C-alpha cells in the first residue's frame, strides 16, 4: 500500500478516516508486477454501506481467486473527504494498493439502489475519468455496472460501457478473462465491447439504437453489430458448489451490518406484485443446511464476530430452517454468539424457534403486512391475513416480546382512504392484542409503524402503474398520522420527494443521462443520503434537460408499450406479468411457487428446466 502523500494531511481532518485507509483483516494484497488485470470493484455509496453488502464480498473473493487478477475496493467518500481530496488534488484511490482508480483496467460498479446512480459519476469524476462512455476511447478503463438496479440499466447507459445482468460470479470472471485476452492482443475498446456482448448476461448499451415516438415513448431499441435482441440474465445453478467468502474482510471500523452474513437461498417463492427482488431473482435456489452450517461456523471462526445473520428475501420460507438453526446454535450458544433472523413472515412464524434463537440476545420483531386491508393485500398478493399477523404478535407478546415493527406501503395501485386508515386499525389491533396477551403490562409496548411510498419497479406486474402524486402521498401520510390511536404506536414515513426521484430513475430511459450529469453538477453525489439529497436540484436538472419527471412517474404505461428494460430478459415472461397485473386488478391472489407453479418462465433458466421451490 502506497498512500498518496497528501493523504496524511487530509485524513486526520475528516470524519471517520478509517473508511479511507484499507488495511483491514482479510484484505487481499497482491504483487502489482505479477498482475495482468487490475479490477476495481466499486460501490457508489459509503464504505459502511458497501462493506455491508454480501454480493460485493462474494465477487471480491471470486475475482481474487483468479491468477493474475487483483480485485480491489473503491467506495464513494463522504462529502468532507471529497472536498479535501479535490482541494489537495488527490484522485480517488483503491483501498488495497492506494493506486488511483484511473490506473485500473476494469472498473465495475455494484448498484443496488437507484439513488446511488449519481455516486458513479461522483467517483468517476473524483478519479478524473471521463464520465461518458463515448469520451473514453481506449481499452483501459472499461467501466461497467452490475447489481439489482441493472434490470433497467438504461438511465446510466451513457456512462457505462456495459452492464452485467443477473448474478455476477460467473460473468465477471468471464469478462475478466476476455479482457485479459484483449489486453494481450491489443484490441480496441470497440472490438472488446462487441466480443463482450457475446457473453450471456452482458448488455452493451452503445450497441442499441433507440428511437422514440413524438410523445416521448420509446418506439424500439435495435441491436447492432451482432448484439442480441434481448440480454438474458445469468444465474448460479448450484449455490452449494458456488464460492462463498468464508475468509472475507473484517472491517476494523464500524459498518452497517457488522456481522457474519449467511445467504440461505436466492429468489423467493412468493409473488408479491410490487416486489422487484421477488421477480428478478427467480427461480428459488436454496443452499443445503449442511453447507450453511459449515460455512457459517467457518466464517464466524475466521471473523471473530459475535453475531451471525441469516439473510434472504423471506427467511422463514427456508425449508430446512429448523435444522439450520439447531446446527448453528449448537456451536453459537456456548460461545455467546447470537443468531439473528430478519425477514420473517407472519404466516409461518414460530415462537419456539424465535425463543431458541434469541436466547443470547433479544432483538425486536419486524413484520411487513405492506397494506392495511385484506382487499389491498390481495391486490398486491401479500398472502398474509390479519389473523396471521395478530396471531404472530400474540405469540410474541405472550412470549415476552414488547416491541414490534410493522412495515407498510402507501400509494399502492387501487389504494383508497379506507386502505390507508386500515393501517391505523391494524396497528391498534396489535396494541389490543398486546394488552390481553402480555405477561407484564407495566413494561409497556412499542409498536412502530412505518410507511414507504409505492415505487413502480421494472420487471414486476406493477411496472405499468403510476406513482401517487406527491400531494396525495402527503395527504395520506397526514391522514394516517391523525388516525393513530395510542401513544404506544409511533408512526414514521419516507419522504415522497425521494420516492418520486427514485421512481423516475427506476423506470427511466437513457435520456436520463443528461439529468444525472446535470444533477451531479448542481448537487454532487451521496444523493441516497438525506444530508445531500436535493429535491429542487433534481427538478431543475429534469427541467434543464427538457424532460418531465411526471412522464416517467405519473403516467400509466400501456401493456403494449416498449419499455426501456424490454431489452433485458430476467427469465419471467411479460405474459406472466400481464396475467398477474390483471389478477391484481380483480383483487385475485395467486398461490406461491411451492403450492403451485404459475409458469412464470423462470424455470427455463435452470438446467433441467424444473424449479425446486
Amino acid at each position, binding site marked *: 500500500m502506497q498512500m498518496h502523500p497528501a493523504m496524511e494531511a487530509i485524513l486526520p481532518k475528516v470524519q471517520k478516516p478509517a473508511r479511507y*485507509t484499507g488495511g483491514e483483516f482479510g484484505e487481499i494484497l497482491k504483487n502489482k508486477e505479477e498482475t495482468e488485470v487490475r479490477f476495481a470493484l466499486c460501490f457508489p455509496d459509503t464504505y459502511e454501506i458497501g462493506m455491508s453488502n454480501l454480493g460485493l464480498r462474494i465477487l471480491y473473493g471470486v475475482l481474487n481467486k483468479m491468477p493474475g487478477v487483483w480485485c480491489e475496493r473503491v467506495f464513494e467518500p463522504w462529502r468532507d473527504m471529497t472536498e479535501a481530496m479535490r482541494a489537495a488534488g488527490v484522485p480517488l484511490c483503491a483501498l488495497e494498493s492506494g493506486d488511483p482508480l484511473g490506473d485500473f483496467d476494469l472498473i465495475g460498479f455494484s448498484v443496488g439502489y437507484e439513488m446511488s446512480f449519481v455516486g458513479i459519476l461522483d467517483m468517476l469524476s473524483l478519479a478524473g475519468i471521463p464520465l461518458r462512455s463515448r469520451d473514453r476511447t481506449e481499452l483501459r478503463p472499461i467501466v461497467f455496472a452490475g447489481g439489482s438496479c441493472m434490470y433497467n440499466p438504461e438511465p446510466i447507459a451513457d456512462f457505462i460501457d456495459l452492464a452485467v445482468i443477473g448474478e455476477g460470479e460467473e460473468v465477471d470472471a468471464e469478462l475478466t478473462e476476455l479482457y485479459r485476452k484483449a489486453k494481450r492482443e491489443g484490441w480496441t475498446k470497440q472490438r472488446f465491447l462487441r466480443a463482450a456482448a457475446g457473453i450471456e448476461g452482458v448488455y452493451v448499451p452503445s450497441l442499441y439504437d433507440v428511437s422514440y415516438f413524438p410523445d416521448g415513448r420509446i418506439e424500439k431499441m435495435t441491436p447492432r453489430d451482432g448484439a442480441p435482441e434481448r440480454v438474458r440474465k445469468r444465474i448460479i445453478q448450484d449455490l452449494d458448489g458456488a464460492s462463498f467468502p468464508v475468509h472475507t474482510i473484517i472491517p476494523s471500523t*464500524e459498518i452497517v451490518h457488522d456481522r457474519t452474513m449467511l445467504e440461505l437461498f436466492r429468489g423467493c417463492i412468493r409473488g408479491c406484485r410490487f416486489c422487484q427482488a421477488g421477480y428478478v431473482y427467480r427461480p428459488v435456489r436454496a443452499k443445503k443446511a449442511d453447507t450453511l452450517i459449515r460455512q457459517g461456523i467457518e466464517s464466524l471462526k475466521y471473523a*471473530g464476530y*459475535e453475531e451471525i445473520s441469516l439473510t434472504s428475501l423471506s427467511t422463514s420460507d427456508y425449508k430446512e430452517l429448523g435444522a439450520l438453526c439447531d446446527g448453528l446454535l449448537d456451536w453459537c450458544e456456548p460461545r455467546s454468539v447470537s443468531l439473528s433472523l430478519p425477514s420473517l413472515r407472519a404466516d409461518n412464524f414460530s415462537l419456539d424457534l424465535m425463543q431458541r434463537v434469541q436466547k443470547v440476545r433479544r432483538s425486536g420483531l419486524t413484520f411487513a403486512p405492506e397494506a392495511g386491508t385484506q382487499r389491498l393485500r390481495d391486490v398486491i398478493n401479500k398472502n398474509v391475513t390479519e389473523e396471521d399477523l395478530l396471531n404472530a404478535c400474540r405469540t410474541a407478546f405472550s412470549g415476552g416480546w414488547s416491541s414490534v415493527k410493522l412495515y407498510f406501503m402507501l400509494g399502492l395501485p387501487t389504494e383508497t382512504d379506507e386502505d390507508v386508515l386500515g393501517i391505523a386499525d391494524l396497528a391498534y389491533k396489535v396494541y389490543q392484542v398486546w394488552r390481553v396477551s402480555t405477561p407484564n403490562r407495566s413494561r409497556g409496548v412499542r409498536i412502530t409503524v412505518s410507511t414507504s411510498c409505492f415505487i413502480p419497479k421494472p420487471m414486476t406486474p406493477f411496472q405499468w402503474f403510476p406513482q401517487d402524486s406527491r400531494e396525495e402521498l402527503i395527504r395520506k401520510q397526514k391522514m394516517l398520522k391523525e388516525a393513530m390511536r395510542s401513544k404506544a404506536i409511533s408512526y414514521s414515513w419516507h419522504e415522497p420527494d425521494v420516492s418520486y426521484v427514485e421512481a423516475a430513475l427506476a423506470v427511466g430511459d437513457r435520456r436520463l443521462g443528461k439529468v444525472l450529469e446535470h444533477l451531479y453538477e448542481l448537487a454532487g453525489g451521496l444523493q441516497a443520503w438525506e444530508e445531500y439529497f436535493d429535491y429542487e436540484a433534481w427538478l431543475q436538472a429534469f427541467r434543464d434537460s427538457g424532460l418531465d419527471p411526471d412522464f416517467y412517474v405519473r403516467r400509466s404505461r400501456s401493456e403494449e408499450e416498449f419499455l426501456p428494460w424490454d431489452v433485458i430478459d430476467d427469465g419471467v415472461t411479460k405474459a406472466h406479468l400481464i396475467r398477474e397485473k390483471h389478477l391484481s386488478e380483480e383483487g385475485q391472489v395467486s398461490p406461491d411457487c411451492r403450492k403451485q407453479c404459475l409458469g412464470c418462465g423462470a424455470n427455463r433458466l435452470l438446467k433441467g428446466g424444473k424449479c425446486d421451490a
Partner: protein
Amino acid sequence: MPELRFRFAKRGRAAYLSHLDVMRTFQRAFIRAGIRIRHSEGFNPHPKMSIALPLQLGCESVCELLDASVIDGPEDMVAALNLVLPEGIEVLAVGEPHRPVREIAWTEWSLRFPDVPSAQEAERVFSLPELSVEKKTKRGLATLDIAPHIRLLSREGEELRMLLRADSPTINAGDLKKALTGRLTEEMPMRCLRLRLMTENKESFQ
C-alpha cells in the same frame, strides 16, 4: 488466569483507527486467536478489557497498553494474535501488570517534520516560556498554558523528542498541533509517534 497486559504497536494505516475501532479489533482478534476474555455481568455483557491513554487519530505508537481479563488461551498468545490482527497493529509483549495504569505520568514522543527548518521553528515554539492553547475540559473550553507540562528533550535533524504530561493535565499530540497553529509561518504536517510511557520519576512503564 489473572489480568494480562498486552503491549502493542499501532502504526501506518492503523493510525487512523479510533480508540473504539481498536477495542473492537482486539475483541475480535481475541476470538480469532482462541483467547477467551471474561465478560461483565448484566443485560448487555461486554468483554473486560481496557486500553490506557487513548491515542489520538493519526498518531502512531509503539507503546500501547491493553489490559484484559483473560480466562484462557494458547501458549504463545503474542504469535496467535499477530496472525489475526489487521495491518499496522502488532502485539509486542504480554505479561502480568506490575503497576496500575494510573502511575503513568509522562509519555515520550517523536515528532517528525518535513524538513529541518520547520523542525527548528517548532523547536522554537515549544521552547517558549508560555504556550496557551484552547483545551476541552469537563467544564467546556478553557485556555491552558501547556508550557509547564511539556519538555523538549532534543532535536535531531527534522525530528523532535518530547515528553508530555500524561495526567492532570493530559497533554496530547493534538495540543502540540494547536500550539503550533498560528505560531508558525505556515501550517505543516507533523508525524507523531508515541515511544514510551513513563512514571513520575521517568522510569519506563510497561
